[in-house]
């Protein structure tokens, strides 16, 4: 066991876990930030997408010790104060989710895109979002929501 200090959603969290513990388990099981989901554990599905220093990353393959040195971690819980990020509003507007399990990750991945590219083309959206699987098949509405959010910004 070792002690780690994490900066998550602009708050400091201390955890006691073994070195090598996945950041995903730290977020979900130790800190109760369960909006970030477990889907595959090998960075193939994107359900666990978070931001580390504004870059989208797959939490399931990150080790806690590499992200406890002041890196700024952001999860879906910290994306907006009241669930009113333009993407979240657009997501509701187009009724994007079905089961909804992958959508925290989808939204975090999309938020990173809009930050760097405020008006992405459809092809740029598809390329950027290709690592996020949606088994319910909501892809067309996700594209629509990202375009809508981009327009509203």
């Amino acid at each position, binding site marked *: 066991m070792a002690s780690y200090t994490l900066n998550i959603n602009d708050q400091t969290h201390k955890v006691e876990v073994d070195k090598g513990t996945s950041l995903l*388990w730290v977020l979900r099981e130790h800190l109760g930030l369960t909006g970030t989901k477990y889907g595959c554990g090998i960075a193939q599905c994107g359900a666990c997408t978070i931001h580390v220093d504004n870059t989208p990353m797959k939490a399931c393959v990150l080790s806690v010790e590499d992200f406890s040195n002041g890196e700024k971690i952001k999860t879906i*819980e910290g994306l907006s104060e009241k669930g009113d990020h333009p993407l979240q509003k657009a997501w509701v507007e187009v009724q994007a989710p079905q*089961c909804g399990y992958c959508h925290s990750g989808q939204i975090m991945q999309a938020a990173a895109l809009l930050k760097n590219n405020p008006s992405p083309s459809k092809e740029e959206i598809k390329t950027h979002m290709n690592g996020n699987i949606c088994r319910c098949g909501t892809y067309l509405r996700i594209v629509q929501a990202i375009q809508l959010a981009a327009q509203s910004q």
Partner: protein
Amino acid sequence: MTQKHSKIETLNRREFLKSSGGIALFIGASGIFPALVSCTDTKKIQEQFEKHAITAWVKISEDGQIIIYNPASEMGQGSMTSLPLIFAEEMDADWSNVQVEFSPQESDIYGSPGWAPGSKLMFTVGSRTTNSYFNTMRTAGAQARAILLHAAAQHWKVPVGELSAENSVVSHTGSGKTITYGELIPYLVAGETMPDLSEVPLKAPDKFKLIGHEIPRTEIPSKVDGTAQFAIDIRLPDMLYGVLERGNLHGAKPTLLNESEILGLEGVVKIVPYDYAIGIIATKLELALKAKSQLKIDWSTSNASGFNSEEIYSEYKKIANQNQSGEVIINEGDVSQAFQNASKVYQADFKNDYVYHAQLEPLNAVIQVSEDLRKADVWVGSQQGTDTKLGVPRVLGIPPENVNVHLQYLGGGFGRRSLSDFVEECAVLAKEVAPKPVKLIWTREDDLRYGTFRPMSLQRIKASVDVSGTIHAFSHTVVGDGGNLVASGIRNDHYAIPNQFADWRSTSHGIRLKHWRSVGHGPNKFAIESMLDQIAFDQKISPVTLRKKLMINSPRALATLEKAVEISSWEEPSPEGYAKGISFVEHGSLGTGVVEISLNKETGEIKVHRVWIALDAGTIIQPDNVKAQMEGGIIMGISSALKEKISVVDGQVQQRNFNDYSLLRMQDAPDSIETVLIPSGETPQGVGETATPMVAGAIANAFLQLTGKHLLHMPFTPDRVLEALNS
């Protein structure tokens, strides 16, 4: 519509009243006895419970808030909105003040009519939810409205016939007086004085204000901010973690070789052996997973040993060649006679490999067993079951009423969560460490390798045309494991073919199988619809003309065909290198789909660009949600038709995770999916499984138009496409 994303409280009906203010409208399980109980009058509640099997569908508080209970699972199909919406429609409730919660999991009370006469089920499967609950929810809602009107009539001392209700407000036509549902609470009277409400009138459909209108889904806001709660998100004090190693040879028995080493690992609390797995309970998830990775297990052989899924098709062909029929599913007219008199006979074999559910939330459950082992609380995302307590009473040897199931949102179901194996596993673990709760998590590898697959099958279709070129005989033999799992969808009830025969011929390989969205409809409709186009192609007639002729006795099916032809501009040629294909499916609702594809002849990759669907699903509750189901069904259909494949070598499942089991991703999604809903006042029909089985046939038919070649084996992977091109 207000949102309730906090932890859903699921109480049994007694606790429910003890803890709540306001008033509950109880409606008898039979739908006949309505009663009202003030939630603070516990003596009265007790009396009512003792006298009647009653339940609450709705709870009203004085500030006008209304809670409506949803008895079905929410796995993305929208039951959390559609069923309460039907209730609110007949209740004339103000939808903006409605909250939705899951009902208790008690099927004798909250079930909808089951498959056997008089039976009741809470079972979110087979696209049955809206269809089976439509009348139940309408009647219960209308009864709630009648109770409120009755109370207002007594309060104002006017005949109930002079009252009307709208948006939670009762009005008296003569005096112009109004009172809200919330304000009526002090005047609500107990059940004994109620009029007979067994035959309450229902609204005429042209008076619907919610049904058929664009009402946003209630739970979506919680699904964009991370607050929607799935079972995997449950955390309880002192909770332990469970994982199982099940191997990849279904049915193999484990012998653990390093028990003492595992028990000595950090955090390991207990090793729990199963017939088919080794379970580990540990204090932390990461420690449980670490211990799992260090298990040394000797696996026995099993019924699946020696089975190779790629090679078995030659055996399937031999079974299809036998003269002896299997279990006959349909036998109309005389196909043998018809084949002898035919102008031309066509025959083809179609094949499909195993596919995996891949619901994105891996299986999991949280269970807490009481210290005396007599009670249990279960948090789970389940499609429920014929046993609404999901097997837990049997595992623990306790009565069903001692098990409280707290239903959570499902991170996908697709049929996988209609099997409760994972819940029973968790109950075994929780019993071992009672009263500490246990969260059981299947890793993705567990979920895939020990999956329950849609069975592989071979479909032999023989069909013939008479001298006029009309199809007059159709014989369909399906060879595969699992009965209805391979045979559903084999009937052609909407095609007027005078001589029809279908049978199922059984095989068995010891591989775990389960219903997978659309079940046998996927492979069967692929085979049937492909055969129709093969005949049309050979006879040089349009696939549309051929189907129109077959649909002569089924005007509703024909209407979907004609609408799909219209919206897809079927008659207009596709751009160079593109082609359209058509396919019809019945799965409760009726639908015709058209896809437009292109083909990379170098790589063998097929791309679906545009999709059009015309659907007749009877009365539509939520139009946009029905369209969402079409979109999702099509995407899952494309994924399974082009990519998905589980292979088995010597009984062992060869894939592990999403790196080697490919799902359709965003770049491969079509550009558009356009759905037109055909207006209808008929009973609502299921929509969750109608789109998926359209896809493979429509793609194969488009491929035939484009290349003159046949795709006969799902999935249409690039290697198989190239093989077809070179055939």
